[in-house]
């Protein structure tokens, strides 16, 4: 799994941090998403997918790699 975030789209809602705190954080000054792990381990895949689904601004893209 490869994760891509679009900082310009992010509206700082924090939904991704709730879904997968190991993979997403927020910048201190403007709350914009910080990607902690662009290739998270298998055990986190479902929570990363949850984060992408929750994101109100559609700022998280998940690419599945075989």
């Amino acid at each position, binding site marked *: 799994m490869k994760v891509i975030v679009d900082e310009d789209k992010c*509206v*700082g*809602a*924090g*939904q991704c*941090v*709730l879904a997968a*705190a190991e993979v997403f*954080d*927020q*910048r*201190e*000054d*403007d*709350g*914009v998403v910080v990607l902690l792990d662009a290739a998270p381990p298998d055990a986190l895949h479902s929570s990363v997918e*949850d984060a992408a*689904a*929750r994101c*109100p*601004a*559609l700022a998280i893209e998940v690419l599945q790699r075989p």
Partner: protein
Amino acid sequence: MTDTRPTTTGPRPAATPQPTVRTCPFDPPEEYRTLREQAPVTPVTFPDGTNGWLVTRHEDVRAVLADPRFGANRRAARTGAPVPADTPLPPPAPGMFIFMDPPEHTRIRRLLTGQFTVRRMRQLIPAVERIVAGQLDAMASAGGPVDLVQDFALPIPSLVICELLGVPYADRADFQRNSSTVLRLDATHEEVQQAHLAMSRHIHELTVAKRVAPTDDILGGLVRDGRLTDEEVAGVGALLLLAGHETTANMIALGTMCLLGNPGQLAALRADPSLMDNAVEELLRYLTIIQFGLRRVALEDVELGGHRIEAGAPVLASLTSGNRDATQFSGDPDQLDVRRPYSSHLAFGHGIHQCIGQQLARVEMKAALSALIDRFPGLRLAVPAQEVPMRDDMLIYGVHELPVTW
């Protein structure tokens, strides 16, 4: 109602009235079930007499709210005097970023998002828990029955948002009265404008004072930052003050009433307090206090659900209906189930306007509900449930008062 053929002429004259009447205090109007199944994108006449579209399925509500072809600057859906359809939309008041589209919306929201991050809100937990404990102490020493709204649900978020913004809590009587006017469905356009103006003027006076004597709070920070005009700071402040206390107060009070009406669910929460995070999400979904949804306007012709929504047409995305959509939520979405697995609910909206204070609301709801049920094991309504005055007459649903004892 089953006609979903594509249309080419925008809203049809045979629009049905937007459903607004509840038969059960916790459920949206019954018509929504039929609409979701048979006419999920349907022409309606809003209570203010204008024609537009009503969107009722979870998937479609999300699609509308995430689509930049639907703009946020729209007339408030009210029951007051109809506004002629050809009246041009006035620009949003300064700072009212919930009615703005990018890039203006982004410019203002970005200045605030750092103040409402998950981490910052979690740092507030001890302070919120102290406020909650203080209110519970006061209730316990006063003895029941008390009005849970005035003595618990309203003070908690009001104290917190005042502290965060840098607004004196002593000013609460004024801003709570003005907030009520803004949210009253029967308020006239003039009354709403006056109340907005009074709130903005109040914040404006505070920002001027903060320029002279800087303070370490959100309004003080916006003044120091200098990227917003004084009028914008006043508008942002009034908006955050209103949204920061009315919404959460109603979720705490209505959430309490709902748990008392579902004793099995309340017992489960008492037996396993670790369920509370999930219970908060479930109460947000089940009760969805933005009771008529979010209104948008089509900025161009848009195809949606087999219909052509013409540019300029108002569209109401029903959060309450979307949150009861059985295709999205497992089990029976019309039942409160604190163990229901999380699935994206719409209580905070969706898209770029999704509630900026949602993490604060979660912290406040969890602290308040956990401590309340823990402190008063015998908590119960002090009047029959059908005598509790419901906020059917407000844009934000809930209870006007909630007499409880223990």
